[in-house]
């Protein structure tokens, strides 16, 4: 059954991808990409990767699509027909694809429990992590402890992206005179938004702190919290949003998040452990792991929230500026 669902979803993905190639209307392209993202999130669920699905849905279908739409608002939604022949790209793609198919011929069978990937390294995560780390969600254990350095890197990437976008687009000025948002006049929207936003933030907090037990964690929480503010900005206008969460504060928050994460790692130096070795944070190693994971997830959450929101602000500020002109 799972294989059948998988096949159907993959088929739908293929159709979506093909449509994207041939469509000239960029708005539709972006929408299709959002669909693509959602479909792949479904596949991730089907393949037992719930955390990944959660992230893909919030990031791919959420943030990425919003940013793309924001860009389209500034650059126009029609793609001009290209006039240079697509032969070379086809050739490159053909060769690359052929190489991949060739490579797939010796791949371990899909889903076989005897695959090398399931025999080496991973068994320890599955068998020992609940005892070593004390968390039921193995993905969180691996993410936040065994491979916490990757996650630190990931936080740094988000921070780097925020710096990049800020340097390119700049943050909107807070004290700009408020402009009426087109959506503000829609009563239904306004009411629904006001209802949803507190719930969303609550949900974000739940995801943040429940990530140890179920799917979720700092990254997803940060994105969801940012989404709440983004929704607020969309409905009530950017100036209102920047009154609530100030851009300058976001910069500080993004920096602080990284520092919390790295600081947690460095603190272990002075307790006699290696970088990011949480065992030393409490007398009991498992408790230490727990404290460490909560701290670093907090760092991730703060940075992601601040970075995502400031990236959105930057894009929205551009759109605003264009509107004024």
């Amino acid at each position: 059954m799972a294989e059948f669902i998988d096949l159907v979803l993959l088929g739908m993905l293929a159709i979506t991808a093909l449509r994207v190639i041939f469509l000239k209307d960029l708005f539709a392209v972006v929408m299709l990409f959002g669909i693509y993202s959602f479909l792949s999130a479904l596949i991730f669920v089907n393949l037992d990767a719930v955390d990944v699905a959660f992230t893909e849905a919030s990031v791919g279908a959420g943030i990425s699509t919003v940013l793309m739409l924001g860009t389209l608002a500034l650059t126009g939604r029609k793609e001009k027909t290209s006039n240079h022949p697509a032969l070379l790209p086809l050739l490159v793609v053909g060769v690359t694809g052929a190489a991949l198919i060739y490579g797939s011929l010796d791949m371990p069978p899909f889903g076989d429990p005897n695959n090398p990937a399931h025999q080496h390294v991973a068994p320890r995560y599955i068998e020992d992590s609940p005892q070593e780390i004390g968390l039921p969600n193995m993905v969180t254990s691996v993410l936040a402890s065994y491979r916490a350095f990757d996650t630190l890197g990931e936080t740094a990437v988000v921070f780097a992206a925020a710096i990049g976008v800020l340097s390119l687009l700049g943050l909107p000025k807070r004290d700009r005179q408020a402009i009426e948002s087109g959506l503000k006049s829609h009563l239904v929207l306004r009411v629904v938004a006001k209802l949803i936003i507190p719930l969303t933030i609550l949900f974000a907090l739940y995801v943040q702190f429940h990530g140890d037990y179920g799917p979720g964690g700092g990254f997803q929480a940060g994105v969801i919290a940012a989404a709440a503010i983004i929704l607020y900005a969309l409905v009530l206008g950017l100036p209102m949003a920047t009154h609530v969460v100030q851009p300058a504060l976001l910069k500080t928050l993004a920096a602080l998040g990284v520092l919390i994460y790295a600081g947690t790692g460095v603190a272990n130096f002075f307790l006699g452990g290696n970088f990011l070795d949480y065992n030393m944070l409490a007398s009991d190693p498992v408790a230490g792991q727990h404290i460490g994971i909560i701290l670093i997830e907090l760092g991730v959450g703060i940075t992601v929230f601040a970075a995502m929101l400031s990236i959105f602000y930057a894009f929205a500020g551009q759109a605003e500026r264009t509107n004024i002109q």
Partner: protein
Amino acid sequence: MLEQHFPVLPIVLPLMAAPICILLGRSQLAWLFATLISGLSFFISVALLLTTLDQGVLSYALGGWEPPWGIEMRIDVASALVLCVVTGISSLVLVYAKESIAKEIDRSQHTLFYAAHLLCLTGLSGILSTGDAFNLFVFLEISSLATYTLVSLASDKRCLTAAFRYLVMGTIGATFILIGVGMMYMKTGTLNMIDLAARIAEFDGNRTVNTGLAFILVGVSIKLALFPLHMWLPPAYTHAPSAVSAFLASTATKVAVYVMVRFIFTIYGAEYVFYTMSMDIILLVLAIVAIFKCSFMATVQSNVKTVLAFSSVAQIGYMILGISLVSSAGLMAGLLHIFNHALMKGALFMAVGAVFLRTGSVDIKAFQGLGRQMPLTMAAFAIAGLSIIGVPLTAGFVSKWYLVTAALEQQHWIIAFLVLIGSLFAIVYIGRILEAAYFQKPSEITEEKDIKEAPLLMLVPMWILVLANIYFGIETSVSVSAADAASQWLTQPTATMGAAQ
């Protein structure tokens, strides 16, 4: 007490310094802080190099989880050597940057510049230190994202298209690496490099493993701008702010070369890559073509930064050539050239940046008559340029000597000859600029203005690099023995490498 944590400090220090720079908020403070942190990283790297020369390899288990379950920092002589180059150049560039970006980057973005620079340094240090294939990808992306930002900070609008092209190519390259790492993972179940090496050795002619290698090599080739995947590099280096060009040209592609060395020699094993897959022939041909094509391109450009950018692609050809010679001597020559080329290109780009600061142009016309107006800057350019050409008593000569010797030892007479012929192009493209500077009357760009010598903060780092060019051209024992030790270490049988913990 901190000594045991040295392997991770060159990553963690700049990583923490980057947000602090943002929090500091003031350009001057951020500059001072970033420079200090970078300098500190440099000293730690030197300490690491000395330790590894002594002990061989340093392993550091992050989170206290022993590899392969946790991520391992694994520093051997090769990584420590390149780490020294990267942190050293970074420190000098930061000193240099203060005056340089004052002109080229908007004031409000100075702290962002320092933060991005430190993040780039974080990424590069991470790539060099890590012993985990996926972790390498993460750090690669940190450095890349920071790099796109740095390139796009320039005031010339062409930097935007250059950065975009760089971003697309860079992401394709990174994704290829990701595909390759995935293929390795599915066959071995591990991501730790040493563990991978031991497990890959069991496969012989496995199609998935072969394809994984191919994707990794192509991906890394994009990152290191191997001909014909180099087209992103000249625009990026040309239009980036001068301090960024100086930093990237002497570090970013070098680190990518290091990644290639790491994958070929540590993970897959030279035997597998070169004998089973015959990659040496492909690399060799591409390297030779790169040397000739891009050296030639360098001779016909009028923008001096473009000249240097094409020259960089050609010089990368020399490094790859050394690797593709399939010998310890060849690898050593490649690694040595990583080191020496960083010294030359850093100094050259710094000199060009100083010229831009004073004349507002980097066209060859702006250089006319500068020999008299900016004597110290042009003298620095001249000496570093002679080093690129490979004139004796400069670092460039030493590289070339070892490269040709390595080729001759393998009986590759024609290749050795081609390497020497290739360096003749350098005479032309460096010679043109020097002739303009010393034997031509000032052009309309420089004529009217009262052009002064570059400020001290730019001259000092520039001349440190120039003197290093001469020092390492005469007193070669340090650089050569380090490169030699690195190549010995990398070319030893994989089994012993894993044993030496």
